[in-house]
């Protein structure tokens, strides 16, 4: 298996309902994507989340819509399946 790319926790994990080998995981060390079921992780340049990323969710009927919440309550949204992220508004 690959390496979890940060010495900090994985507080949130999301399995992409469209392609279950795609995983998103987040924690104090950042938000990460794996396209091989968790062997290799790469950082997603979402931005700094105060306290780290703590929750992830996907709209099951509109699976291109993803959400990531930070410990300070900041909520980011992706409308393209996780490629780009913006503050929810």
């Amino acid at each position, binding site marked *: *298996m*690959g*390496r*979890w*790319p*940060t*010495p900090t*926790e*994985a*507080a*949130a*994990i*999301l*399995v992409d*309902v469209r392609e*279950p*080998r795609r*995983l998103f*995981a987040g924690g104090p*060390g*950042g*938000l*990460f994507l*794996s396209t091989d*079921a*968790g*062997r290799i*992780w*790469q*950082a*997603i*340049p*979402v*931005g*700094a989340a105060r*306290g780290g990323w*703590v*929750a*992830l*969710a*996907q*709209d*099951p*009927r*509109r699976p291109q*819509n993803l*959400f990531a*919440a930070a*410990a*300070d*309550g*900041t*909520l*980011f*949204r992706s409308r393209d399946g996780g490629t780009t*992220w*913006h*503050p*929810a*508004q």
Partner: protein
Amino acid sequence: MLSVALGLGLIHARDTGPSSAGQSIQGPTAAAPRSLAVDPRDGSLKTASLGVFRSEDGRRWKSIPVPAPLAQSGIGQVVVNPDKPTLIYAAGVGSGIILSEDGGTTWRRVAGLPSMAVQALAIYAFRRETLFASIRGRGIYRTENGGQEWRRMDGGPDGKPLLALVHSPLPGSMNTGWLYAGTLYGPYVSMDCF
């Protein structure tokens, strides 16, 4: 259960950089959210953050009342059944699991677990009556009938406290999918998910 660490340790060369999006959208309470779920009917969000909250836009949050003693003892998890979105589970350490079958209007407690210390809760990827609950110090429990009965399945990855659980439909040797667990030491996976 075979649990495999999905890597530990080393800093990745492409660690996240500074924020490129500066606007901060605050959540429903001063407490950190621990869980997010999307209602497939309208794309609205539910979060657990010392209670259960609903938002249509991620900015304005409306409390979904839960029995007061449970909210005070900490709701940290919320799960919406994707096939029946009015069925909502909420859980937390100190709260056990409660469920609502009417979209959050009324709640009842789920019995049968060995303690109220529910660290994480996950719903099966396609068999929606099956859920997994991580109980602090006790292991991972499974129900196959929507919470009526629970059975201890495993101690979890090396007995580590769990922060998150998620079920995957990826095929395993027992055709039961995979179970991912978020821990203080990174993600773990069981590929023969009981």
